[in-house]
């Protein structure tokens, strides 16, 4: 293993990254841009869902209830209607996502503690707004019932020995407001660091397409020297991103950074080693850049998105997928980033994930080296 050979490739590759505009954009700007885009687009808080109300009761209590439900920023009263047909028209036109139907006797039933005759109709084609509205209405209704109950008890002279009928207190640790953004953004970092891996796959395919690889194969450089020389520069640019992205996350999205930055930096380097190993495998097998690009999306970005636990908990996946998730560097890195950002844990907790990543990196690099031939055809 000649350090001089490796260094020659590293320097050449860095010159390429800095001077070739498209590569520069891909490895140094795309991760940040993608991060901002995804963070804004994927983590929008649902607000101002338009609803229609069909109030058959028309009592002060029912009016009071509607007013309470639509008081915040969450649900907006779009229309008071007087028939089911009107609701259907509004839903079909997409003007409302949710309709509430207050049955006749709404006030009477509450007063006699029989419950709340309330129906919610949601637009099933957009279940997210619907689910949000159901949750929100349920929560407000519970509050309303509790108030009504206390009022009843008070009127009966009972003030002691009765508490709220439902008293469930949920407290989300490490993310007190349960904002999705807070837990998504550290996870998204592992996604956007897929770009250096994509670039390393593209650069190998590019050299093959361009004929420079044939020239390299006719030199005494060994396979290991060439692959390491290709990998190191992209680890370095990846680490530049590892510095920029947490800063953005903290400044723009107010994500806490509770852990130790050095730990994060070190584990990120190990993650880059593993994901770049995947990139090299793709570059070794794919002969053209479009093919390398397509396979990168299939092996790095799509699984990175859906299988690493950023969006869907790994525990709820079928067993085969869980096994696959273990082989994805992003799975381990998502745990590391959440741990460092939110929980604030250090190496004492995260070291197994670092070891897993290092192991995956070695395996990937070995596969790339095994199948990379210094021969044509």
């Amino acid at each position, binding site marked *: 293993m000649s350090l001089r050979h490796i260094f020659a490739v590293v320097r050449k590759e860095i010159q390429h990254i800095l001077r070739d505009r498209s590569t520069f954009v891909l490895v140094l700007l795309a991760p940040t841009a993608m991060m901002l885009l995804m963070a804004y687009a994927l983590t929008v808080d649902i607000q101002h869902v338009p609803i229609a109300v069909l109030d058959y009761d028309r009592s002060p209590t029912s009016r009071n209830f509607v007013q309470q439900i639509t008081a915040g920023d969450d649900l907006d009263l779009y229309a008071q209607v007087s028939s089911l047909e009107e609701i259907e028209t509004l839903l079909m036109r997409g003007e409302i996502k949710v309709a509430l139907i207050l049955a006749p006797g709404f006030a009477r039933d509450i007063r006699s503690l029989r419950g709340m005759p309330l129906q919610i109709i949601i637009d099933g084609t957009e279940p997210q707004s619907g689910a949000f509205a159901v949750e929100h209405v349920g929560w407000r209704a519970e509050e309303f019932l509790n108030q009504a109950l206390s009022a009843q008890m008070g009127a009966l002279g009972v003030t002691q020995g009765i508490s709220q009928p439902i008293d469930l207190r949920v407290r989300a640790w490490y993310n007190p407001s349960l904002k999705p953004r807070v837990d998504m953004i550290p996870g998204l970092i592992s996604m956007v660091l897929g770009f250096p891996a994509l670039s390393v796959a593209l650069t190998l395919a590019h050299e093959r397409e361009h004929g420079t690889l044939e020239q390299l194969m*006719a030199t005494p450089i060994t396979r290991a020297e060439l692959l390491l020389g290709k990998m190191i520069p992209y680890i370095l640019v990846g680490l530049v991103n590892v510095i920029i992205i947490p800063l953005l996350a903290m400044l723009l999205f107010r994500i806490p950074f509770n852990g130790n930055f050095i730990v994060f930096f070190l584990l990120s380097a190990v993650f880059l080693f593993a994901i770049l190993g995947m990139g090299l495998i793709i570059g070794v097998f794919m002969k053209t850049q479009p093919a390398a690009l397509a396979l990168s999306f299939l092996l790095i970005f799509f699984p990175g998105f859906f299988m690493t636990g950023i969006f869907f908990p790994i525990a709820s996946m079928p067993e085969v997928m869980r096994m696959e998730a273990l082989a994805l560097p992003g799975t381990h890195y998502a745990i590391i980033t959440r741990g460092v950002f939110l929980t604030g844990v250090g190496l004492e907790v995260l070291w197994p994930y670092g070891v897993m990543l290092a192991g995956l990196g070695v395996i990937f690099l070995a596969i790339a080296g095994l199948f990379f031939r210094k*021969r044509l055809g």
Partner: protein
Amino acid sequence: MGDSQSEELIPTVNSNEQIIIETQGLTREFNETLAVDSLDLSIRRGELFGLVGPDGAGKTTTLRLLTGLLKITSGSGSLAGFDLATQPEEIKRHIGYMAQEFSLYSELTVLENLRFFSELFDVAAEDFALRSEHLLEFAALSPFRNRRADHLSGGMQKMLALASTLIHEHEILILDEPTTGVDPISRREFWDILAELYDNRTTVIVSTPYMDEADRCSRVGLMYEGRMVVCDSPEAIRDQLEGEVVHVRPDDWQAARVVLGELPGILETQSYGESIHLLVDSAEVRIPEIELALKENGVGIKEIRPAPARMEEAFISLIRGLAAHEDAPEKP
């Protein structure tokens, strides 16, 4: 001819160790197509060996087999004493190889490209300083040392590719169509440099589709459909041409070809721009006949004269002979 005599003397004067590249029945198949078919080749140290032939003849495949870049399907061969099949990495240390589409790193400057290849070939830093200066001078690239490779002209890129190949010391230089797509003046300069290398006793193997370049080699191998059709000195190959060449420049090229096609004693007609080269059994006898026939058919003659046979005529004639031979048995 003095040259061909000395060619024949070399093997008797020098022993077999002077053979630096040798192949026996070298064969390479691609999907059951024989790209290179049982090639027997023997190249002596210090030769400037030209590999010529039309596109698809197997020149590039042959050179890639010699560099160890392609696996041999069958047959055997050695280069500088190393086995082509089992010692490709040793071979790579002993050759300078310039691929057909030698691509430089377009974002790197002239000097950076040279340094990159010098490092991969373990050229010492002091040696690099000397060699790069010399090569830049040699390739007339000194004023452009800090220019990016993609901002060089095509000819300069080829020169830089050659310089990158020459940056390390090697016994054998293998160049795959180094002048394809280069303007005539750059081609001439390139060959002047090769001739100088040849004088320095480096063994050079160069493939080219240009027959005029074959004339500058010490020995030429003509490949056609994967096989070596002829392998000899340019003089000897020219001598193989039966008949003599007549150069005709008519005023109506189309009409002239029709007339000439029916004349006796004409073995072949080859087109050269506005002119026609005729291969005839005897120039002395046929020139008056040709003049008469053209005049009778109302075709004016701007020029008619006997012409020296060139490699080009010789090769085209050889290949046509082969093609006709091959077609014949297929006809029912």
